[in-house]
């Protein structure tokens, strides 16, 4: 008898032996609904990006041709021409700003990550950089206008580069700092244990190990700067001519071209603005892809 009682106790409660999923079950239902919701909302979040890309391809793709890249911007009411000077101008301005921002941001990051630590100066620098990342880009333009344009007496590629550099420095500095900090302490200890000095450890171990992360930061800063219009409006201004090697003269740029032509009453200029947008987005996209690839480390165990 005792045995029989035990057996009934061990057997699963009758009626609940099925392991089949039932959609009538509240948990199963809730799970399905929430999963569906999450997927739907993610798709909606991606909608703007894809609709913008679609519009750019439809409206800007029509003008894609070699002459778009090789010819100057046309005057008001004229047909033909291209955006060649604006593409070159954007690259020149971004080049100038990179030359200014990269050494500043990178050396700042080395100081913050390896030397400053939590000292007052380092904390102040870090705080300033964080505030600067949120700086409205038009203020960078105002600053460069006041410092460069007013003192030199003319709008120039250099002034545009300075404005963009103000925007790039904090991004480069903060992303590089985190890349440098991500280098494992045990690697540094290995170097110190071999008898490396602090400078040797930073130069030969920490910086080379952090290079992919630093590159990512630089690329992202570049991509962001490239799309900015406001800082260039009253610094680099615009030019309907090719860049002739003089950084002290106004220069064309894709973003200002888009700003100018998009509101133009002439259809052809509006079409060029679409094409310029497509080119700009493509450049930014390529930079982002490069940043992604650069971060990829060789296989690690």
């Amino acid at each position, binding site marked *: 008898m005792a045995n029989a009682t035990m057996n009934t106790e061990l057997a699963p409660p009758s009626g609940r032996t099925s392991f089949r999923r039932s959609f009538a079950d509240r948990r199963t239902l809730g799970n399905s609904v929430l999963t569906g919701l999450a997927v739907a909302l993610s798709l909606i979040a991606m909608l703007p990006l894809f609709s913008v890309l679609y519009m750019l391809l439809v409206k800007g793709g029509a003008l894609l041709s070699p002459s778009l890249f090789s010819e100057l911007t046309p005057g008001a009411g004229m047909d033909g021409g291209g955006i060649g000077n604006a593409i070159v101008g954007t690259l020149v301005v971004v080049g100038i700003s990179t030359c200014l921002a990269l050494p500043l941001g990178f050396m700042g990051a080395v100081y913050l*990550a*390896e*030397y*400053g*630590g*939590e*000292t007052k100066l380092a904390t102040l620098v870090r705080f300033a950089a964080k505030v600067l990342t949120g700086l409205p880009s038009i203020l960078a333009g105002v600053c460069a206008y006041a410092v460069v344009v007013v003192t030199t007496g003319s709008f120039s590629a250099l002034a545009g580069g300075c404005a963009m550099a103000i925007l790039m420095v904090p991004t480069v500095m903060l992303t590089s700092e985190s890349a440098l*900090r991500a280098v*494992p*302490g*045990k*690697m*540094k*200890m*290995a*170097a*110190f*244990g*071999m*008898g*490396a*000095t*602090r400078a*040797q450890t*930073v130069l*030969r*171990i920490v910086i*080379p*190990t952090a290079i992919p992360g630093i590159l990512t930061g630089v690329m992202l800063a570049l991509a962001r700067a490239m799309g900015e219009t406001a800082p260039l409006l009253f610094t680099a201004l615009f030019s309907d001519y090719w860049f002739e090697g003089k950084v002290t003269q106004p220069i064309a740029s894709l973003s200002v071209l888009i700003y100018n032509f998009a509101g133009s009453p002439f259809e052809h200029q509006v079409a060029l603005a679409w094409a310029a947008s497509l080119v700009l987005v493509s450049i930014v996209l390529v930079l982002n892809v490069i940043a992604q690839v650069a971060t990829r*480390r*060789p*296989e*690690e*165990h």
Partner: protein
Amino acid sequence: MNIQEVFPKVITEKRDSGRVSGAHAVGAASADPGVVMDCRIKTLHYGNFLAVRDTEIPIVAHEITAFIGPSGCGKSTVLRSLNRMNDFVNGFRFEGSVHYRGQDIYAQGVDPVAVRRSIGMVFQQPNPFAMSIYKNVAFGLRLNGFKGDYAERVENALRGAALWDEVKDKLNTSGLSLSGGQQQRLCIARAIAVEPELLLMDEPCSALDPIATRRVEDLMLELKEKYTIAIVTHNLQQAQRVADRTAFLFVDTSAGGRTGYLIEYRPSAELFEDPREERTKAYIRGEFS
């Protein structure tokens, strides 16, 4: 970790260079003329915390000296004081002396960087650099401004670390792509490439599986022909298998803190078969760890 944490201002106090006799130290080994490194710690503080006291361990040439003892007994701390790696810890203070090649490495005017260049170190966690296997091994040579044949030295170091056959066809791949045991042998190769007289190993097998552990142990036995080795280990069998002499450290909690000190330092065979001190006996029997 930033440099500020790693490079605190080191407070090194005036030290008594005379002999300090530890309460429990057994001086038999120190009479040996082949002593490479004469470690005489009077007190070792981290801030106000007394981490180690009264520990004298003369390390004899071409021998393996093991430091054993329960957790927190300061065996790693003692090892790290032998190449001034403790200088990186905030508030580190040292009283006593560590004589190496006739010089006290804690004497005033001694450059810890120069000390570390001639003493090799292998860490608990394998820590190869994020660079190729070849460059990992060549790192110390470059650091020392070596002018000779790099390829030959790298090959010799890798052979010495019993890693050559496994990596000779992929010297340009990242050191991080190796397995844990291979990485640790790479770190050993990196350390011996500069041919240090003394090699310090801080629980070098604790992150390795038994097979890799055995390989590293065999390697140590080969290496002691050329080098002198001091090793911290948590593994009594390991000390028994490889060490010529063993130092047993213990934790003193009587003053409220946890202070490590030397109980017994003797040839391994004697220490394990016929321990003199009660606490050594208890530890070897496995009554605590």
